[in-house]
C-alpha cells in the first residue's frame, strides 16, 4: 500500500459506524481492502524471486502511474475554460467532460482492477456476509476513484485559484463529488445493462471494446476539439439559454456552482442545487441497495455459466467453420510450406480471438481514422478537391493517408510476440520443429494479410470511384512498400515466436520504436511523393521494395533456435 492508500483507507473507515449499521463486518472490510489495495499496487512479477525482492522498493509504481495519467486528463479538462466567457457554460462543459472521462476510465479499471474473478474463489467461500462484500467492492471502487479524482481536479483547482475564483472552490469541490457519484451510478447502470443482454463470459470482451472506444474518443477529442474551438470561440455561447438543458445532469452541477459563486439563489438555482445533490445520492442508494447485489450475484455465475456455453448453436459453429475454410484456402496460396501455413493460421486465430491483442492494436484503427478525418474535414484547405485533382497538396494528402495507415500494422507487429498465455508456447520448443523461422514468416504474413491488405482494399474501394484509375498504381506501390516496411520491422523486432513472450516484457520502448518506424514509413512516403508522376522511378522503387521483402523474408526464414529469445525454457 502506498501512503495515498493508507490515508484514503483511514478516511473511508471513519464512516465505520454507518457501515456497521448496514450489517458490515468492519474487520473483514478492513482486511479485504488492505489486501486489495496492496494487490493493486503490485504488478504481477514474472521475474525470479531475487528480482521480486528488489521490486518491493518500487511498489508505488502502479498507483503513481495511474495518478499521473489522471493528471494529464485533468489538464485536458482545462479546455472547457477556453470555450466560453460564461461560467455556467464553462462549468457545464467541464462537468460533461469530467463525467465522461471519469466514467470511461473507470469502466476499464473495473474489469482490470476492481472486479477480480478470483474473489469468487477466495472470498466467497469464507464467512463474509453479503453486505460486507458489497461494501468492500464499493469502497475499493471509491478509493480507486479518489486516486484518480484528486490529480484530475488539481489543474482546475489551481486554475480557479489563479483566476481568483475563490468563492467557487468549495461548491465546486462538492459538486465534483456529486458528479463522481453520478458517474459511478452511470457505470453501474451500463454494467447491469451489459450483463442483462449478454453472458458474463462475453462481459469482459464488451468492456474491452469500451476501452478501445474510450482511447479513440480521447485521442480524437484531443486532436479535433481545438480545431472546432476556433469556430465556437467567437460566439459567447450561453448554455443556460438552451431549451432542454435542465434535463442534462452536468448543467445542474454547473448551475449549482455558479449560484454559490454569484450568490444568486433564484428558483431555478435552488432546483439545480437540489437536483445536483439529490439525484446522485438517490442513484447511489439505488446502486447499493438494488443494483450491486444482483450484480455481484451475476458475476459470481461467471464460473458456472461456462458449463452452459458449451451448448452453443451448431449452426453458428458451422458458419464460422465455413468462413475459416476460406481463410485457410487463401492462406495456403500466400504461404510457403506447411510450417509457414501453420504459423499463419495460428497467428490469425490468436489475433482474432485474444482480447489483450485487440485492446492493444484496435485503438490504432481509431487513431488512423481520426487523422484521416483531420485531413479530410479541414475546412481551410478543401482537401477533397485537391485530392481529386491530384494537385501537389492532394498528392501529399494521399501519401499521408497511405503511409500513416502503417501505424496499424506497426502496432500489430509490435504486439504479436506478447500474450498472457505466453507459457503455452512450450509446445513450439517441445515439438520437433527444425527452425522457428517459418513460423515467424507465417506470423508476419498473417499481420500483412490482416492489417495491411484490408486497408488497401478500402483505399481502392473509395479511391477508384473518387479519383479514378490513376490512383491504382500508387496504391499498388504503397502496398508493396508497406509490405517491405513490415518485413524490415519483422527482421529487427520479430525474432520471437508469435505470442510467446509475457506481456510484462513489452514496455516503454514500444512507443519510441513506433515513432521511429513511423518515421521510416514516412521516408518511403517521401520518396514515393518525390517521384509521384515519374513512373519508371516508381517502378524501380517497387522493385527495390520487393527485393527488400524477399531478402528479409528469406533471412527471417533462416532464424535459428539460438536467435529466438525464449521465456519458456527456464
Amino acid at each position, binding site marked *: 500500500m502506498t501512503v495515498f492508500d493508507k490515508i484514503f483507507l483511514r478516511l473511508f473507515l471513519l464512516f465505520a459506524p454507518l457501515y456497521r449499521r448496514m450489517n458490515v463486518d468492519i*474487520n*473483514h472490510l*478492513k*482486511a*479485504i481492502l*488492505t*489486501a486489495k489495495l*496492496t*494487490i493493486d499496487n*503490485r*504488478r*504481477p*512479477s*514474472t*521475474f*525470479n*524471486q531475487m528480482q*521480486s*525482492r528488489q521490486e518491493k522498493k518500487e511498489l508505488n509504481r502502479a498507483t503513481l502511474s495511474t495518478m499521473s495519467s489522471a493528471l494529464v486528463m485533468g489538464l485536458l479538462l482545462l479546455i472547457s475554460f477556453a470555450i466560453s466567457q460564461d461560467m455556467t457554460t464553462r462549468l457545464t462543459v467541464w462537468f460533461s467532460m469530467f463525467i465522461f472521462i471519469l466514467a470511461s476510465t473507470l469502466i476499464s479499471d473495473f474489469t482490470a482492477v476492481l472486479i477480480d474473478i*478470483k474473489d*469468487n*474463489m*477466495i*472470498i*466467497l*467461500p*469464507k*464467512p*463474509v*456476509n453479503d453486505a460486507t462484500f458489497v461494501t468492500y467492492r464499493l469502497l475499493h471502487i471509491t478509493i480507486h476513484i479518489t486516486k484518480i479524482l484528486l490529480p484530475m481536479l488539481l489543474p482546475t483547482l489551481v486554475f480557479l485559484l489563479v483566476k481568483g475564483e475563490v468563492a467557487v472552490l468549495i461548491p465546486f469541490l462538492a459538486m465534483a463529488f456529486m458528479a463522481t457519484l453520478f458517474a459511478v451510478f452511470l457505470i453501474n447502470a451500463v454494467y447491469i445493462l451489459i450483463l442483462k443482454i449478454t453472458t458474463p463470459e462475453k462481459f469482459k470482451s464488451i468492456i474491452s471494446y469500451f476501452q478501445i472506444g474510450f482511447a479513440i474518443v480521447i485521442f480524437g477529442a484531443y486532436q479535433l476539439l481545438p480545431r472546432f474551438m476556433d469556430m465556437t470561440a467567437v460566439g459567447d455561447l450561453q448554455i443556460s439559454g438552451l431549451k432542454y438543458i435542465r434535463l442534462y445532469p452536468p448543467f445542474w452541477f454547473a448551475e449549482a456552482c455558479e449560484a454559490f459563486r454569484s450568490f444568486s439563489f433564484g428558483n431555478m438555482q435552488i432546483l439545480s442545487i437540489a437536483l445536483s445533490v439529490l439525484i446522485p445520492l438517490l442513484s447511489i442508494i439505488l446502486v447499493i441497495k438494488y443494483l450491486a447485489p444482483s450484480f455481484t450475484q451475476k458475476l*459470481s455465475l461467471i464460473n*458456472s455459466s461456462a*458449463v*452452459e456455453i458449451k*451448448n452453443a448453436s451448431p449452426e453458428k459453429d458451422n458458419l464460422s467453420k465455413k468462413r475459416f475454410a476460406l481463410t485457410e484456402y487463401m492462406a495456403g496460396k500466400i504461404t510457403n510450406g506447411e510450417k509457414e501455413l501453420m504459423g499463419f493460421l495460428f497467428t490469425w486465430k490468436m489475433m482474432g480471438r485474444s482480447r489483450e491483442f485487440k485492446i492493444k492494436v484496435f485503438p490504432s484503427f481509431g487513431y488512423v481514422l481520426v487523422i484521416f478525418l483531420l485531413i479530410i474535414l479541414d475546412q481551410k484547405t478543401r482537401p477533397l478537391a485537391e485530392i481529386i485533382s491530384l494537385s501537389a497538396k492532394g498528392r501529399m494528402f494521399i501519401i499521408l493517408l497511405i503511409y500513416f495507415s502503417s501505424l496499424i500494422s506497426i502496432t500489430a507487429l509490435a504486439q504479436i510476440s506478447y500474450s498472457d498465455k505466453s507459457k503455452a508456447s512450450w509446445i513450439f520448443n517441445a515439438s520437433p520443429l527444425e527452425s522457428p523461422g517459418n513460423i515467424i514468416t507465417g506470423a508476419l504474413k498473417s499481420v500483412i494479410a490482416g492489417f495491411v491488405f484490408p486497408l488497401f482494399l478500402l483505399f481502392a474501394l473509395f479511391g477508384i470511384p473518387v479519383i479514378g484509375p490513376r490512383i491504382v498504381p500508387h496504391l499498388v506501390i504503397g502496398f508493396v512498400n508497406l509490405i517491405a516496411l513490415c518485413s524490415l520491422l519483422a527482421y529487427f523486432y520479430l525474432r520471437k515466436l508469435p505470442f510467446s513472450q509475457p506481456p510484462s516484457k513489452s514496455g516503454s520502448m514500444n512507443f519510441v520504436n513506433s515513432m521511429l518506424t513511423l518515421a521510416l514509413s514516412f521516408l518511403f512516403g517521401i520518396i514515393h511523393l518525390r517521384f509521384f508522376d515519374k513512373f519508371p522511378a516508381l517502378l524501380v522503387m517497387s522493385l527495390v521494395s520487393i527485393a527488400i521483402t524477399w531478402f528479409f523474408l528469406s533471412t527471417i526464414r533462416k532464424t535459428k533456435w539460438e536467435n529466438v529469445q525464449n521465456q519458456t525454457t527456464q
Partner: protein
Amino acid sequence: MDPIISIRHLNKYYGPRKVLSDISIDISPGQIIGYIGPNGAGKSTTVKILCGLISDFTGEVLIRNIDVKKNPVEVKSLIGYVPEMAELYDVLTPLEFLRFIGVLYNLPAEVAAGRAEIMLDAFGLAGNKDQRMDTFSKGMKQKVLIISGLLHNPEILILDEPLSGLDANSVIIVKDLLDKMASNGKTIFYCSHMMDIVEKVSDRIILINEGKVVADGTFEELKMKEGDNTLEKIFAHLTADESLTGASEKLINAFGNDHGNK
C-alpha cells in the same frame, strides 16, 4: 448422533441440464468421505453447494443443523475449503495472504499469524513466507492453499483434489494430517480422481455418476457388493458405458498402419 452434514433430496440444474438428481446423504462427524465420480458427474457442484457458494438448488442441505440456504455465512465459518483450481492473490506473500484469510475467518491477528508461520514451516515454506507467490511452483501454491483451508481449525474440511502438484513427502504429510484430524472428530469431505488414495484414506466412499449416487459404503462393503478388488475397478464397472479396453483399442487403432518411425 446427529449427522454433521445432511443432504436431503438435492436437485440442481444448470439451465435445462440436470447436474444433481435427488441426492440424499448423511455424514457423521469424524468420518473421511471419499467423494468420487467421473468428470462432469456433479462433484464440484455438490462441493459448492455444501460451501454455500450456490444457492439455487432444491432440497435441503444442513450443516450441523444449519440450513446452507438460509445461513450461508455461518456455514462457511464451519468449513475449510480447498478448491480444485488453485486461485490465490499471488502478488501477496504467503504470510500476507494467510493473515488476510485469518481475518475473514474471524481469527485474532496474532493467532492467525502464529498458526500461519507454524504451518508454513511444517510444509517447508518458512524460507518463502515473505516472497510473492507469483514466483511459486504449483506445489508451493497448493501448500498455501491447504493451509488457508486449515487455518481456522474448521469442523469440516472440504478438499477438492488437494494433492495435485504436491511432492511425495507432502502427500504423506497431508494424508497423515487427515487421519489425525478425523480422529479428533473433524469431518473430511475428500474429492479426488486418484482412486488409490481415496481407497486408503476414506472411511466411506460415495460414488456419483450423472448426478446420482451409484455406490455408498466402506471400501470393504463396496468390494463385497461389486465383486471387484480395487476401487479403480469398482469405479470403472459402475461408471463406464463401454469397456475401457475398447477405448484403448480405439486409441491404438487411430494410428492405422503406421507403426512408428523405427
